[in-house]
């Protein structure tokens, strides 16, 4: 026995339920039934029931399967009745046989009846079509034609759900613990208890994930910050508490089995129930899901919350006084064994820069205050070639300079600026202070955000070590030569 339906399940157990319904109607075991679930517009036209959405299966598809099975059962009984010389209403289908009610030894196997419809159609009852194949198309009266605005009704049944959540929030850490969760469903007649409960749990888990964990995060530059499943936190089994499931059954009048759609389980209700419970616990209705740890801690303690990593630095020609707003930023200072004049001269010398910029493969001067460089950055085994353009601005000789630039390479791109200030200190030495801020995009921004700080620190450290060696005149590159050389390869492990 083969059942073909237009539903396209994604693990909701349509095959299980279809086989069960047909087996019940024909007196077979569910394992005797092959269920083919597919929708291919090459072989059949699309209909409203095609596909896997809006609870088609239990409200519509399974009703047509039941009706079709009844048609097949009726035909089998008619043929068997003639073979057994009894009235069709005295035939029952049990254990793979059509047999006379009350006289179990008077029986004919279903396979014989089915074979007869193919091999001996002339022997069928009068006017009966050969073959044993039935189709049912359901046309519920409430599904009207599209209106002038092309709106069309697609819902035949309406399930009801009531969820109750009790949560406990740890004020110290922001951890939300679901202490009790009750979910009561009116799905009409339950077609298969295990399938229904499984979907309720699954829907609840997804709803809980939306309530507590899952979030697409972007920085102000539009870079996705949850670019992998290490950052986009799907729910896993240990995070899902036990759910008490209850049923309140009002059968649907719109299909033969009285079933209603229930495929969404608690997926839409769980976020609401959790949010409402949290609102009650926290004494505020100003709740935005998901209730991640940091956010809930801030909420529970009346602190402002802004998702970290969402800020973006002002770089380039923006007002400089506004300070650092976000992105990648840092500052520091080094003390150098030379007066500001000497430091200044060396700092703006392309030859020096080519020698001390970590991983500098090539550096050329593109104008009085412009440079173009090819730099290999290799830290933590993550290595890539970047081309950078840097411009010097607001030069105050022997005192300060601003560097504005952009770079791009295999793993991403960025633009940023730095400020360098020189200050004479005791015994002819100089304190060089620097600050920088940058916005980074591309792959490295999406998956390697937290590495950027370390990489920058390491590179700055390498730069100043090289610069100091250069100041002393005993370091790498002091023998002169062109810009095109590589003095600091990689540097990391």
């Amino acid at each position, binding site marked *: 026995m083969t059942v073909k339906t237009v539903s396209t399940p994604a693990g909701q157990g349509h095959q299980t339920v279809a086989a069960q319904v047909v087996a019940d109607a024909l007196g077979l075991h569910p394992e005797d039934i092959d269920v083919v679930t597919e929708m291919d517009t090459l072989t059949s036209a699309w209909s409203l029931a095609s596909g896997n959405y809006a609870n088609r299966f239990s409200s519509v598809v399974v009703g047509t399967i039941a009706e079709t099975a009844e048609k097949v059962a009726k035909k089998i009984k008619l043929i068997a009745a003639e073979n057994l010389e009894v009235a069709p209403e005295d035939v029952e289908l049990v254990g793979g046989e059509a047999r006379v009610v009350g006289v179990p030894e008077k029986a004919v196997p279903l396979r014989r009846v089915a074979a007869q419809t193919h091999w001996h159609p002339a022997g069928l009852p009068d006017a009966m079509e050969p073959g044993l194949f039935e189709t049912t198309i359901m046309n519920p009266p409430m599904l009207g034609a599209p209106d002038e605005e092309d709106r069309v009704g697609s819902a035949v049944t309406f399930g009801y759900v009531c969820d109750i959540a009790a949560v406990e929030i740890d004020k*110290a*850490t*922001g*951890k939300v613990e679901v202490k009790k969760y009750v979910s009561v469903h009116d799905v009409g007649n339950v077609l298969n208890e295990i399938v229904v409960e499984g979907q309720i749990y699954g829907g609840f888990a997804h709803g809980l994930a939306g309530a507590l*964990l899952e979030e697409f*995060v972007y920085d102000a530059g539009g870079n996705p*910050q*949850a670019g*992998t499943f*290490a*950052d986009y*936190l799907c*729910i*896993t089994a*240990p*995070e899902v508490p036990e759910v008490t499931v209850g049923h309140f059954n009002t059968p649907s009048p719109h299909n033969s089995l009285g079933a209603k759609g229930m495929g969404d389980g608690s997926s839409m209700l769980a976020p609401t129930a959790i949010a409402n419970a949290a609102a009650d616990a926290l004494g505020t209705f100003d709740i935005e899901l998901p209730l*991640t*740890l*940091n956010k809930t*801690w*801030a909420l529970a303690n009346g*602190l402002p919350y*802004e*998702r*970290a*990593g969402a800020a973006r630095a002002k770089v380039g020609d923006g007002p400089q006084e506004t300070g650092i707003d976000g992105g990648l930023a840092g500052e520091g200072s080094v003390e150098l064994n030379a007066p500001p004049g000497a430091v200044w001269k060396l700092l703006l010398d392309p030859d020096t820069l080519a020698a001390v910029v970590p991983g500098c493969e090539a550096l050329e001067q593109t104008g009085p205050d412009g440079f173009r460089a090819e730099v290999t950055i*290799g*830290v*933590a*085994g*993550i*290595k*890539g070639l970047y081309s950078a353009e840097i411009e010097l601005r607001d030069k105050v000789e022997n005192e300060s300079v601003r560097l504005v630039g952009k770079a791009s390479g*295999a*793993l991403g791109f960025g633009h940023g600026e730095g400020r360098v200030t020189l200050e004479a200190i005791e015994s002819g030495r100089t304190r060089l202070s620097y600050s920088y801020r940058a916005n980074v995009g591309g*792959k*490295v921004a999406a*998956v*390697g*955000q*937290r*590495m950027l*700080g*370390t*990489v920058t*620190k*390491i590179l700055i450290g390498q730069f100043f070590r090289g610069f100091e060696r250069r100041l002393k005149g005993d370091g790498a590159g002091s023998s002169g030569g062109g810009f095109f050389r590589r003095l600091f*390869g*990689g540097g*990391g*492990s």
Partner: protein
Amino acid sequence: MKPVAFEYCRPDTLDEAMELLAEFGSDASIVSGGLSLGAMLNMRLVRPKALVDVNRIRDLDAIRTSASGTETGAMVRQASALKSREIAEAVPLLARALPNVGHYQTRSRGTLGGSVAHADPSAEIPLSLVTLGGSVKLRSPKGVREVAAREFFHGVLTTDRRADEMVTGLVWPAREPRTGYAFEEIAQRHGDFAIVAAAAAVTVGEDGNITALSFGLGGVEDRPFVVDNPEFIDHPAIAATAQEIASAAAEIVEPMVDIQASADYRRQLVRVIGAKALMAAFADAEAQREAA
């Protein structure tokens, strides 16, 4: 999600591995469990010319305990270490940290040495090693060296390991008498890298006062580190002291900021999780005093 083309090398001996590292240097990536490297390869963050698979090298999975401490080979699987009675007795802090490492399944593959070489700032094994003042054994074609764990970790995924070196083992100091060990962490989900992890080793004297203290933090800064807090020696090993130690640490840390946690939130977790770890260590030390 496909790695760049690379040469796959699977040496049978350390000497063969050394030859490969000498040949490929920083263009080689060493893979043991591959739990972090696999993802980084797939995302093409790492683009090695050669992948040196050290899973076939024998003698790297031994656990040896002597009076001076315990040495675990780099290839000791996390699951084996967790099951090991030797580790439970000789390195209780590691035994308490390990259930927090990834998941049951990933621990079957993940190695102690791999976690240390990878140097995720939130990882539990590096934090345990740093807290206990252990060290990392490295081997290169030129020879062997041992680096104190507190100097080994430079930053996020960056260590003192040179391109031609391989981590061959970890050295865990012997457990001290009358010392309590505890590990606590908080993560958004079970098995995630900790937002904040705290490890504590506290020795408590007969008078109930702290005589030695090592309070380590992971996930807070760009590497695991031990808080410098000698001022708490001779303080009573009680809840109030635990709060003070953790709160003092929260004031001095410079936390990382990522999409999971702000600097302020990480400081708060240092206070809460840190105090929890310290109190558990105090209780552990007290239990030993009673048993003695």
